[in-house]
């Protein structure tokens, strides 16, 4: 909403500088977006919240300024009642023009009073349509409204000043005695004053003559009945339309106007009829003409809403101590009618222009605004502590910190993606968006991997390597009544990692074992120990805990990488269902007492066939090693020179301990030899 300083000054005693005014308005809830000096005036632009249509007018803002500054308002009393102007004007019969309309007999038919609670028409004839006087032109142009002619400009000027959108029809072009406010019929057409032809339907409210629509109610007039320099007689419309109908209609035809903007926020009875009179007065003054008749149809003038306000309640909710008399005065300044009751309550009657005030709490907000938010003290609430915390959130935190400690970077990617980025998901399991802005947002992603691959691709293009990233977020799949939301973890490893050691740089190419290592650390941190990785093929393995599939790790196929334009590099990924992981997580700790006696460690270097899984060797050792044996670990493996082709060297470390005494070499050499023998027998393992 734009207005000017001088314009406002006409309606309220104003002693503030424009800058000070802007600050006061902002702090009262009328946020000033810009203040600009121009042509000896100042243009202010205010962001008006949707609950305050009364602020979409200069007098509405003047009322607010009066309330904050305690200064006098200079708003003319809007006289209520249609006859006041009509008598005294010379109502004549038929015109001498081409029209066959008897202007005195113009009548209004409202098909549904809910769509249009009030419609007034003023018939003015013998107008001289000319350019507007300079003051009017300037006023409109300063706020960015193009001057058309005196009649149209007056309707706009009154709208910006009082808030009621008006429309003037050329009555001779309208050529009807009956104005009908009705829903459009399906397929009806209208050409509007913006030169666009629109096809209408039953959701759109129109103003019509006997045959066809002449305006889209509350949105825009028709071209055929536009006022121009040849216009001699006008019908001046001032009405109230149902905000929801106007909103729906203007959305359907995809346009918005100053008029629809106000109607969908709500205009009131008094403003509508008062503006009609003020506009008529101005037209008679600037375009001559005479008021011939007035027609009006609609509901009766509504009763004012009465609300009881307990000043104690206001003080209690706000944390202030304002006196009853103070509160009464604040509300009166804002235009409320307040009665002081002996009960200690205030009875407040709400003026029609404050349709947003419906409850006591709405009045409390008015008290807060005028009291000044800045004057309300700052207190610290006592919070009654509640035991209980969000376990899953805790676990997500542990996982993220573990991954970051393992040199993975957290990424956050969009939940809405294009279906083209997916591979291996059936269409009926996807959750689709009804109204995406683009194809990029057409589905809710079932997996995180596509998002991460886009990140890999982006970073490769930027020559950023290696790309080790993860994301924790929800995946979506279709469900019965609502889609399923599952918390997922996805990790991507791509590119050779170079690290320093005391020997210089070590280069390392990622693979499934890296993912295994990362996931093992994560699981260990969550207190999950009985997990196992099962290899599906050389490029894919599954993670199981207690027979439950928790996730999969794999190398991406070339086909998948092509989709993301990833070239000349391998990408390895791990994908986990975190909800399942969380069900198994156990953060409780049970300490195992430290051993009383030292252990003896014996290493064992063997050469076995390359395709013999180390798991098998370990299982065999655990099975047959006897009761002094405690654990066996792989501490090295090697393939290459010194090892024949098709074989590999593995070094295992076996730990022996007794809980009753210190072991000697002799205690275990036999045991260890036995293990060696078994491995030789079972797996044809050779000693190194």
């Amino acid at each position, binding site marked *: 909403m734009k207005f000017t300083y001088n314009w406002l000054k006409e309606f309220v005693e104003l002693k503030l500088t424009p800058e000070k005014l802007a600050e006061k308005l902002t702090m009262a809830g009328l946020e000033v977006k810009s203040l600009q000096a121009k042509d000896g005036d100042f243009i202010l632009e205010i962001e008006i919240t949707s609950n305050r249509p009364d602020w979409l007018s200069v007098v509405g803002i003047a009322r607010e300024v009066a309330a904050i500054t305690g200064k006098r308002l200079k708003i003319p009393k809007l006289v209520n009642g249609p006859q006041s102007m009509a008598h005294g004007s010379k109502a004549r019969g038929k015109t001498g023009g081409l029209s066959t309309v008897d202007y005195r007999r113009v009548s209004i038919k409202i098909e549904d009073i809910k769509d249009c609670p009030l419609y007034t028409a003023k018939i003015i004839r013998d107008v001289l349509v000319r350019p507007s006087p300079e003051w009017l032109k300037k006023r409109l142009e300063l706020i960015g409204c193009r001057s058309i002619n005196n009649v149209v400009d007056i309707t706009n000027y009154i709208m910006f000043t009082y808030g009621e959108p008006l429309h003037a029809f050329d009555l001779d072009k309208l050529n009807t005695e009956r104005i009908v406010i009705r829903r459009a019929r399906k397929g009806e057409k209208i050409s509007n004053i913006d030169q666009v032809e629109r096809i209408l339907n039953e959701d759109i409210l129109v103003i019509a003559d006997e045959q066809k629509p002449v305006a889209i109610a509350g949105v825009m007039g028709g071209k055929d009945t536009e006022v121009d320099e040849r216009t001699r007689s006008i019908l001046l419309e001032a009405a109230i339309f149902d905000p929801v109908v106007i909103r729906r209609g203007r959305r359907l035809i995809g346009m918005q106007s100053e008029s629809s903007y106000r109607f969908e926020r709500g205009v009131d009875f008094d403003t509508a009829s008062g503006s009609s009179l003020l506009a008529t007065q101005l037209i008679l003054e600037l375009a001559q003409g005479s008021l011939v008749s007035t027609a009006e149809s609609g509901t009766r003038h509504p009763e004012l809403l009465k609300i009881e306000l307990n000043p104690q309640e206001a003080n209690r909710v706000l944390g202030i101590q304002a006196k009853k008399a103070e509160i009464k005065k604040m509300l009166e300044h804002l235009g409320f009618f307040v009665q002081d009751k002996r009960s200690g309550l205030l009875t407040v009657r709400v003026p029609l222009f404050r349709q947003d005030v419906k409850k006591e709490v709405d009045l409390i*907000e008015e008290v807060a605004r005028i009291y000044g938010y800045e004057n309300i003290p700052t207190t610290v609430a006592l919070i009654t502590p509640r035991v209980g915390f969000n376990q899953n959130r805790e676990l997500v935190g542990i996982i993220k910190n573990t991954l970051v400690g393992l040199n993975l970077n957290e990424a956050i990617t969009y939940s809405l993606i294009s279906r083209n980025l997916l591979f291996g998901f059936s269409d009926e399991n996807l959750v689709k*968006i009804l109204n995406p802005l683009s194809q990029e947002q057409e589905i809710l992603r079932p997996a995180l991997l596509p998002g991460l691959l886009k990140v890999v691709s982006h970073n490769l293009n930027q020559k950023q390597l290696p790309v080790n990233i993860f994301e924790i977020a929800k995946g979506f799949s279709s469900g019965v009544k609502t889609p399923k939301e599952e918390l997922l973890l996805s990790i991507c490893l791509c590119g050779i990692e170079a690290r320093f050691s005391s020997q210089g740089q070590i280069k390392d190419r990622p693979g499934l074992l890296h993912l295994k290592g990362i996931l093992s650390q994560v699981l260990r941190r969550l207190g999950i120990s009985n997990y196992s990785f099962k290899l599906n093929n050389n490029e894919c393995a599954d993670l199981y805990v207690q027979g439950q599939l928790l996730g999969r790790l794999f190398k991406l196929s070339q086909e998948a990488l092509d989709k993301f334009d990833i070239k000349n590099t391998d990408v390895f990924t791990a994908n986990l269902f975190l909800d399942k992981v969380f069900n198994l997580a156990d953060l409780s700790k049970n300490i195992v007492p430290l051993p009383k006696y030292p252990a003896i460690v014996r290493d064992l270097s063997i050469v076995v066939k390359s395709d013999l899984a180390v798991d098998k060797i370990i299982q065999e050792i655990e099975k047959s090693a006897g009761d002094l044996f405690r654990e066996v670990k792989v501490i090295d493996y090697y393939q290459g020179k010194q090892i024949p082709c098709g074989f590999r060297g593995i070094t295992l470390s076996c730990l022996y301990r007794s809980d009753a005494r210190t072991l000697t070499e002799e205690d275990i050499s036999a045991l260890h030899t036995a293990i060696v023998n078994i491995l030789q027998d079972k797996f044809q393992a050779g000693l190194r």
Partner: protein
Amino acid sequence: MDIDSIKTQIEQEVQNIASSGQMSEFKFKYLGRKGIIAELTSSIPNKPKEERASFGQEVNRLKSKLNILISEKEKTLSSGLSQGGLAVVDIGMPGIAQELGQLHPITQVMEEICNIFMRMGFQVVEGPEVETEYNNFTGLNIPLEHPSRDAFDTFYLKDYDRLLLRSHTSPVQVRAMKEHKPPLAIIVPGRVYRPDAVDASHLFMFHQIEGFMVDRGVRFSDLKGILEVFAKGIFGRDIKMRFRPHFFPFTEPSAEVDISCIICKQKGCSVCGRKGWLEILGSGMIHPNVFKNVGHDPAKYTGFAFGMGIERIAMLKYGIDDIRLFFENDLRFLKQF
């Protein structure tokens, strides 16, 4: 060779060791898996029965003597290294350690905000991202056909009846209040969605934190107090704050909260539009209609609620001028946090 001559040989050879490389060779020769000591040990079973015990002891003595000689020699070797400059440590070389990754800046800011509120006794609750129209709008006193909905353009789901992607975290207010009786002090972090055209300050997905507190006698002044603790915690003790009246359908009275511009210190810059103030969040006293909708008596309880965009807070805090950077995940960006 008998043990004594081995011992003599060892003593001589140790003296001649001059580098760590020679030391390794020496160790390998005597202590390696097929070294001389191992040979001696494995020869024990071949000795006549009566000699085995004493021979074994001698081997053990030799072994411990060897270890003592080695550790003594190593001490002189390492001190000799630094004196002789054979392998000086160059402290300018890269340190050797496991590198660390980074949490996403949105996560970091979100955690920071949650931690401030958790220290004040708030509990973290999360909600689903797919919501009902009721929880997202009607329950929060937002009429379905009203201009106040313009700020909440929404993605709807195909094939479901009136399900949508939440356009704010406020539906969790409705969920939490329906499920639990006051007193409540809850914060809700999460993703939200709005069909906005993408530019430097708008995206169709972003993050919010919602907070609310409900009890008997919660006041607007308490809202001011709690938010002051928060804003000073995030942006520093020196910032100024102001509360401006505003309109939100689910709070009454409502307020927008500004902080003094942290970039120009209110001298005027492009970020604050030369106004000296930066809007950081919306807030207010929970509307009585919301209490009615969730089944609490508005005559008994009052409460406040607030909500903020994490991206906005992060952008202000770190001086980021394009919201899209958060979701591009360029490693050069991520590694700066």
